[in-house]
């Protein structure tokens, strides 16, 4: 059966499935799956390194089940997610290495022609489970073809100490940027400050700086990929962050992705952007002080700015197979198996909500409501934009993020080493070097 024929069937099935699918109801099998792995297939899978051991153990267990079911041998390896980026690039460049990589963000958009077309897998999963989040689709698709399958996001939410927030005069966590600034100022006054990474922290610094930029209407590029970062909206965002920075704990200019975890769990930090890891570590810690912090903390989405809609940037995980693989069908079969709701759900439970799902149908997993502190992480993909917003994902978006153009702009303006106007102009000049190519 050709792809065209199968997709026609999928589309027809999707219509029926959509009718059946209500809130929280998974549609009945709407899509066919005819892929057959190559005989004696053996694939090498490289994925991001686990933060929660139970999550990786479950992933490995599911992988073993897949091998038993299909006969496909899988060699599973894990690397720190920041180290996957260069490895993925080298694999694309030399045409050798892992068959499948589960990495991050726009990496597959840097070498789309080296990747297996995953359209049939994405169509199957999308049809089966009622469609992908739009941002997941943006990360997965290049033109009309899917080059990667989104796995979700190691979501980031605001981590805060409830008692410190209340002591600062707030009963509820503020939902807008104005209230958020007031909270940070009050926390500073009480000597229980907030802190957000402004060093070259790939996840945390890019995460909150992009949010600050977008929440005020600023963006690096417009829909035509023209650099528009030097704008009044960006200046407003820089002025806002300048005020926020004054309330931060000292040293954030040097922070990488782990500094805030350490400071929060040591009780020195009351508010920061992070994954669910701080709470998980605190909860499972043998240290009574950290257990107490875990009990006293909660999570919230990033506040909404003047633009009036959520503008988060999340560390979206994407799986992509290489054309150099001898077993592309086995690669697809593996993804289909691991992403099937039953298996994904079991893995999500083991991860304790570490990965925000890419398909809204997966939101009904009981893990998300098992503790109200986990729930904000469920909808990370619903609230987030892609890192190339409002333009395309590709070399330029990856280069601007990899070169910390936006983070440096905020760091310059916040620390006073440049005025907001100068910082925005410099960021525009740096971004143009990539977008003009």
């Amino acid at each position, binding site marked *: 059966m050709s792809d065209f024929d199968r997709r026609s069937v999928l589309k027809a099935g999707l219509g029926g499935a959509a009718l059946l699918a209500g809130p929280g109801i998974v549609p009945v099998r709407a899509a066919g799956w005819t892929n057959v792995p190559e005989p004696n297939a053996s694939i090498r899978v490289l994925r991001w390194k686990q933060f929660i051991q139970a999550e990786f153990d479950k992933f490995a267990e599911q992988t073993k089940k897949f091998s038993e079911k299909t006969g496909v041998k899988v060699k599973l390896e894990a690397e720190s997610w920041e180290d996957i*980026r*260069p490895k993925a*690039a080298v694999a*694309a*460049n030399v045409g050798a290495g892992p068959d499948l990589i589960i990495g991050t963000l726009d990496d597959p958009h*840097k*070498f789309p*022609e*080296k990747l297996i077309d995953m359209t049939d897998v994405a169509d199957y999963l999308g049809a089966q489970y009622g469609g992908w989040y739009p941002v997941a689709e943006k990360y997965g698709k290049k033109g009309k073809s899917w080059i990667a399958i989104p796995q979700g996001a190691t979501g980031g939410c605001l981590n805060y100490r409830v008692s410190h927030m209340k002591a600062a005069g707030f009963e509820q966590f503020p939902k807008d940027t104005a209230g958020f600034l007031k909270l940070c100022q009050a926390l500073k006054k009480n000597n229980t400050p907030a802190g957000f990474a*402004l*060093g*070259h*922290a790939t996840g945390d610094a890019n995460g909150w700086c992009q949010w600050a930029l977008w929440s005020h209407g600023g963006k690096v590029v417009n829909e035509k990929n023209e650099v528009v970062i030097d704008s009044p909206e960006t200046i407003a965002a820089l002025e806002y962050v300048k005020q926020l920075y004054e309330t931060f*704990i*000292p*040293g*954030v*200019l*040097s*922070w*990488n992705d782990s*500094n805030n975890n*350490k*400071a929060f769990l*040591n009780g*020195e930090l009351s508010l920061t952007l992070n994954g669910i890891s701080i709470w998980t570590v605190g909860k499972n810690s043998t240290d009574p002080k950290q257990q107490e912090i875990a009990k006293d903390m909660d999570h919230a989405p990033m506040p909404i700015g003047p633009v009036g809609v959520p503008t988060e940037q999340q560390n979206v995980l994407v799986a992509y197979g290489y054309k150099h693989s001898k077993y592309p069908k086995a690669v697809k079969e593996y993804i289909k198996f691991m992403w099937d709701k039953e298996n994904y759900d079991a893995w999500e439970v083991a991860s304790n909500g570490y990965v925000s799902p890419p398909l809204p149908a997966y939101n009904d997993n009981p893990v998300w409501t098992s503790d109200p502190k986990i729930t904000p992480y469920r909808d990370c993909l619903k609230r987030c934009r892609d890192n190339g917003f409002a333009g395309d994902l590709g*070399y330029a978006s*990856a*280069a601007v993020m*990899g*070169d*910390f153009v936006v983070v*440096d702009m905020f*760091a*310059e303006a916040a*620390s006073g*080493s440049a005025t907001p106007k100068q910082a925005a102009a*410099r960021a525009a*000049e*740096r971004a143009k*070097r*990539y977008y003009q*190519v």
Partner: protein
Amino acid sequence: MAVMAESVAAQVKRSSLWTRAFESRNFLGAMFMVPAIAILILFLAYPLALGFWLGLTDTKIGGAGRYIGFQNFVSLAKDSVFWLSVFNTIFYTVTASVVKFAVGLYLALLLNERLPFKSMIRAIVLLPFVVPTVLSAIAFWWIYDSQFSIISWVLIKAGLITRYIDFLGDPWNARWSVVAANIWRGVPFVAITLLAGLQTISPSLYEAANLDGATNLQRFRHITLPMLSPIIAVVMTFSVLMTFTDFQLIYTITRGGPINSTHLMATLSFQRAITGGNLGEGAAISNAMIPFLVAAILLSFFGLQRSRWQQGGRD
């Protein structure tokens, strides 16, 4: 029979050719050089040429790229972050190398004296060089931490400061902090190599100087320094090269931050080429390091290997 005779003749001819070849000094010399040449071409010349070529292309990761002449360099010439990295690299190399030389020479002179537990002290001095760079970098990252720095903690406990020092959050603090980490790591190499050089100086020279009534300073100025200068030239060339191309310390401690104030050319090259995906531009930054490195080597060799000066004369 005729066939057999012919093959024997051919064999004799062949063997005589082999024998003659192996008896030829020129042929044997060339043969012995082949493995070395092959290794040099494969692991040195080819990567260097490829790097140089990549710097002249717009190659992206996963893409073929095309020749664009010196466009990468023209673009870099207008890039303020690149020039900042050039400044940082020169600052890092010069300050760290000068201090490493001074401290290394002092330690070498000290260890050359009669000391109790001399062997043990020499082994201890070597320790920073033995520890893997990444491990020592992580240790320094903790030492410089804005919330958990042991230096700040001790100073606060001693009542000398009231708040933690922002070692890595302030551009100049960060620069000096990474220089200090590099010095700690690099001193043993300089010290031990210079110590080896000191031990080759004949004691009779010092004895003669003593008889002539030379002071310690005069002995150092007129015997130690000139006799040591060839070793100094070599050790400082290596030290400058290793410092100029340093990557691990910076990447582990600061990733080039804050606001690119500790980005060296090597770390910027990696960031642009691998993280950012622009292999061509990353290679161009690496290529831009070559003139500086060549200049450093020439300076070390021609500046410190002045034969007349070594012999006590003027240049």
